[in-house]
């Protein structure tokens, strides 16, 4: 695997090379991504990602509606970490305006965000295995993921595109059933981790397809601004929850898993260990869930943030999600720029894919966990 012959990058005469469109409707491409590959045999000479097929103009919509009306948009930007985006946007506005969040709401937010993160990683795990040709883990992962969707659906009213956050809190309180369900899920998931380890991690075929493939070095990550698990797999301990603590994360005890190799296997290990850390955070949150209100007495509908530029970042399941908000002092944002982690990860792909084999493309692109609607916004 990935044994690039020394002549790989030599310019071949034109009748020896050809172009191949992988996507936008390729079965193993994630969403509508198109990779324009320049090939010589099975070797990739160059790669150009073509994006924009899922562009829905969220940033333009933001300039045409009041701050509160943008809340439902946020979870649709990245439908897999919708909760993190949703709560993150509320936290950004709270910081701009100076709204206090009650302690109970803050802990609920952390719990649901971490459940969302596990859900996103489980989906990634399943589809990544599917990319590599293993159908069985996919079904188990979706089974586990369904539990989270059911738990969150009961509390928030949505399975995927949440609008659970409000400025200063959340829409609905959690009850004892939620706590019981979450605890039972953690017990279940930890048992499943053992099975996943035996089923996937110890599988020689899986190891062979991932080890040493698609290395994203720290240097490439720095060049392209790659963040999240893909960065941590190359040994950099950067997590927004730790680097710029927000939403009460500084009160939780958790580790930031890192690996050294930067290959597909390292990214796999980082994400699996991250799920275990999320379990720890949820456990602490459930134990320490304080009583009290879950938001301001009266719903904050109209707000006018002070004029100026603001930046707020959260750690989504895929990395550093930043919001650059320009306020003109009115109730409508003058501009919101959504800095999404998948955009940066994908922009590094030409550098990573050059010199690899077509068959590895699927493993590499699958392992960086792209969500195309998040790239296109």
């Amino acid at each position: 695997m990935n044994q690039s012959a020394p002549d790989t990058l030599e310019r071949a005469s034109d009748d020896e090379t050809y172009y191949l469109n992988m996507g936008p409707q390729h079965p193993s491409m994630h969403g509508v991504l198109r990779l324009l590959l320049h090939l010589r045999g099975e070797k990739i000479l160059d790669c150009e990602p073509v994006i924009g097929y899922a562009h829905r103009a969220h940033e333009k919509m933001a300039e045409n509606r009041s701050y509160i009306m943008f809340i439902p948009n946020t979870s649709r930007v990245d439908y897999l970490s919708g909760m993190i985006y949703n709560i993150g946007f509320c936290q950004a506005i709270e910081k701009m305006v100076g709204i206090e969040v009650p302690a109970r709401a803050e802990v609920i937010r952390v719990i649901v965000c971490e459940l969302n993160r596990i859900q996103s990683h489980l989906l990634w795990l399943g589809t990544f295995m599917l990319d590599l040709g293993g159908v069985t883990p996919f079904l188990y992962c979706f089974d586990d993921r369904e539990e989270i969707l059911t738990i969150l659906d009961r509390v928030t009213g949505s399975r995927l595109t949440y609008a659970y956050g409000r400025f200063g809190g959340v829409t609905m309180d959690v009850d004892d059933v939620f706590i019981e369900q979450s605890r039972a899920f953690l017990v279940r998931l930890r048992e499943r981790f053992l099975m996943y380890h035996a089923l996937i991690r110890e599988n020689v075929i899986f190891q062979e397809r991932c080890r040493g493939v698609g290395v994203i070095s720290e240097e490439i990550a720095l060049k392209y601004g790659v963040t999240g698990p893909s960065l941590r797999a190359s040994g950099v301990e950067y997590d927004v929850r730790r680097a710029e603590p927000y939403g009460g994360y500084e009160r939780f005890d958790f580790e930031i898993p890192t690996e050294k190799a930067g290959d597909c296997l390292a990214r796999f290990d980082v994400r699996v260990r991250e799920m275990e850390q999320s379990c720890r955070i949820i456990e602490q949150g459930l134990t320490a869930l304080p009583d009290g209100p879950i938001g301001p007495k009266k719903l904050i509908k109209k707000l006018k943030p002070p004029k100026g530029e603001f930046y707020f970042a959260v750690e989504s399941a895929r990395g550093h999600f930043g919001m650059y908000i320009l306020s003109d002092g009115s109730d409508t944002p003058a501009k919101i720029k959504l800095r999404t982690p998948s955009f940066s990860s994908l922009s590094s792909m030409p550098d990573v894919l050059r010199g690899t084999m077509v068959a590895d493309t699927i493993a590499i692109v699958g392992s960086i966990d792209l969500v195309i609607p998040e790239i296109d916004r």
Partner: protein
Amino acid sequence: MSGPPTLDLRGKILETGESDYAVDGFHHRYSAGADQVVAIAEAFRASGYFLEMLTCEDRRADLHKMRLVYTFNRFATADRHLVLVELAPEIPGAEAPSIAHVLPAADWYEREVFDMYGVRFSGHPNLKRILLPDDVDFHALLKDFGRIEDAPDAAQPNSESPRDTSE
């Protein structure tokens, strides 16, 4: 172990602004001339920073300028630098030097700014649209289009405006 050299922006920035990280999320804030962005990007790269974000603002209504917004950050400890670069207000016409050869992350960000705002980047290796189709004839995030509710055909079926949130 010696770390990367400390950041030296002397002579590259026009003015240093006030910023309060606890409020606006920026540790440092500068304005700079378009002719200095390459030197600024090189200084940040040499000190181990990455280009966190690059975008543009249509400020023709209040500042009579287009304005580029760069933020640089580093992995070790958060240290966010906001660099604001004012450009000519004419679209097409506004132009800045590309920093894609210094920080490759800028390649796609600059293409997005060109796509959405029509600002051109001289020296960019492949300045074409990135999100919108290649054949559209507008730049979507310019404020040329008015607001949705100002459009004549945007009348709501119900008499109450959806933006009326007074109680």
